[in-house]
């Protein structure tokens, strides 16, 4: 009798077992499809499960392994936020507008993962067109948090956060324009990286605000994000923002010691700009203690106020999102969710002078942030002031005025990741955000990995 497939595996663990021929990609895929069937009705993480395609790909991966091929993603089942185009597979952006949209080709990122041997399990829930909040007036319900299904996953990569946390997929792709990878990573207790803009191609990812959009990995651990980034990163001449820089070695470099690293604590962010709950304050104190124990030099750091970054980010997002959707808003307004309309329609009223002022101010904020990295290797803060809120507390008109720390990294064009650094007394995960200077994605992953391990949070899964 074959041993059962473990319920929870990281990409690194599964990759090792598959390479040693102790785990069959077909058996792993079957186990995950079964788990999706059992668990997902209470989570709504998947909009579409591509079971037959997944099994076909798993059989191909198994053949390749038996033929001697190797690779860290060969035979690894993953899933994609439903704004990633997938050839022949419906891609809706969780919207009635694209209900029948079947792309002819894969997003560049999807192609890269498939070339590396990853297996697509299906398409994941998002906020409509990656903006807004949970909506009940769309063809699919919003995703729910596996740690407590009454709670919000965070967004907009809501299905990606829920699926990875619940062990329905070993990894996922998300997108991040103002925090959409890192917010669900924080609320769902997983790891998520918003890479440096230009490192990962956005070709074939339905855009929200091209000035700020980034595509990136989400997984149970920082190490798994590094494995995914090794496949995802690389120049794509067809994405005008893609930059030809040396890439790779993210997973390989993750164990290098962080002793002597200069860690800046963005204390004003969570004590003043977006005041944190007592439990988040405790998590920050614990994380600082762990960094000290690992030999890092800790000091308070200062950046311009969160509200400065937020104002710039939200003016750019509203303007660009409105411009992209204007024609459809004119003809199919009522087919969009109310929360989408509230977030995007204001873009119709923003003057060109204000949009350009936001872009000019962004240049200053990029420079001010880069200046801070002359004194520090990484900057840390909580991405959100508290653990996951109740879904019922989410209001469609909420959000513009509330300061959002994650938007700082989008506006500043730096890499940023969230890892699980602790739990509340009621067992909800708490995330820590780590920002690095542009192109230091490997360093951010390394710091995230070592903090995650020191905090000992990766052995605890949702009940």
């Amino acid at each position, binding site marked *: 009798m074959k041993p059962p497939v473990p319920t929870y595996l990281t990409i690194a663990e599964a990759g090792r077992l598959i390479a040693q021929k102790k785990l069959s990609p077909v058996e792993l895929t079957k186990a995950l499809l079964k788990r999706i069937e059992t668990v997902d009705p209470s989570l709504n993480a998947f909009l579409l499960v591509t079971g037959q395609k997944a099994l076909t790909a798993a059989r191909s991966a198994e053949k390749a392994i038996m033929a001697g091929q190797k690779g860290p993603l060969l035979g690894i089942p993953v899933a994609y936020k439903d704004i990633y185009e997938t050839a022949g597979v419906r891609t809706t952006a969780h919207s009635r507008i694209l209900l029948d949209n079947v792309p002819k080709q894969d997003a560049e990122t999807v192609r890269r993962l498939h070339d590396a041997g990853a297996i697509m399990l299906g398409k994941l829930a998002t906020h409509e067109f990656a903006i807004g909040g949970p909506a009940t007036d769309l063809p699919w319900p919003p995703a729910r948090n596996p740690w407590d299904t009454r709670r919000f996953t965070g967004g907009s990569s809501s299905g990606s956060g829920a699926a990875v946390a619940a062990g329905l997929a070993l990894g996922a792709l998300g997108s991040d324009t103002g925090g959409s990878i890192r917010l669900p990573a924080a609320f769902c207790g997983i790891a998520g990286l918003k890479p440096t803009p230009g490192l990962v191609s956005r070709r074939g990812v339905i855009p929200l605000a091209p000035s700020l959009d980034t595509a990136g990995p989400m997984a149970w651990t920082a190490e798994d994000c590094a494995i995914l980034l090794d496949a995802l990163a690389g120049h794509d001449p067809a994405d005008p923002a893609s930059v030809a820089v040396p890439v790779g070695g993210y997973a390989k470099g993750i164990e290098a010691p962080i002793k002597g690293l200069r860690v800046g604590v963005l204390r004003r962010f969570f004590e003043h700009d977006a005041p944190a709950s007592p439990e988040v304050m405790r998590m920050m104190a614990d994380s600082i203690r762990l960094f000290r124990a690992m030999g890092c030099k800790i000091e308070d750091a200062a950046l311009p106020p969160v509200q400065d970054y937020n104002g710039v980010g939200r*003016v750019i997002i509203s303007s660009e999102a409105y411009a992209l959707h204007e024609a459809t808003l004119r003809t199919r307004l009522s087919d969009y969710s109310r929360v989408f309309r509230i977030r995007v329609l204001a873009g119709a009223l923003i003057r060109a002078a204000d949009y350009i002022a936001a872009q000019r101010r962004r240049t200053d904020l990029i420079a001010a942030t880069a200046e801070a990295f002359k004194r520090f290797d990484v900057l840390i803060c909580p991405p959100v002031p508290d653990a996951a809120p109740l879904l019922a507390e989410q209001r469609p008109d909420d959000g513009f005025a509330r300061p959002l720390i994650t938007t700082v990294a989008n506006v500043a064009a730096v890499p940023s990741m969230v890892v699980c650094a602790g739990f509340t007394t009621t067992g909800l995960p708490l995330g820590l955000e780590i920002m690095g200077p542009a192109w230091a994605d490997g360093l951010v992953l390394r710091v995230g990995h070592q903090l995650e391990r020191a905090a000992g949070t990766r052995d605890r899964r949702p009940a």
Partner: protein
Amino acid sequence: MASPPPASAPIISPAEIQILVSRAGLVLNPGQVADLVLAWRQVAGLIGAMNRERRIADDMALVFRLPPPTTTAPAVAKRAAPAKQAKEPPPQVKPAATARSQPAGKAKTPPRLAPAKQSAPKSPAKARRR
């Protein structure tokens, strides 16, 4: 020359919003106008608070990127290339395999948003499994 101090974003009445909305080609019902008034007040607050103290000379141009010269460039241009450039090692980058034949700026664009449809959407239960 420093920019003049920013003017706070003006408060717009629902009637004025209606005019701007019409100018944008949108048709909103009263509830949608009310939502927009609320959203606009929040955005207007952010615009009003935005720091604009920046020298006018700080922005020389908007950023754009020209495509690289084509391989059919005049032979004379090839001969003019300095020898030392040829010795520079190529950057170690992973090219996008499917993009090799595509010139910059010719990326496959995301789907055009679909035209209006009369039929009701599929039920979530039907749409969910494929």
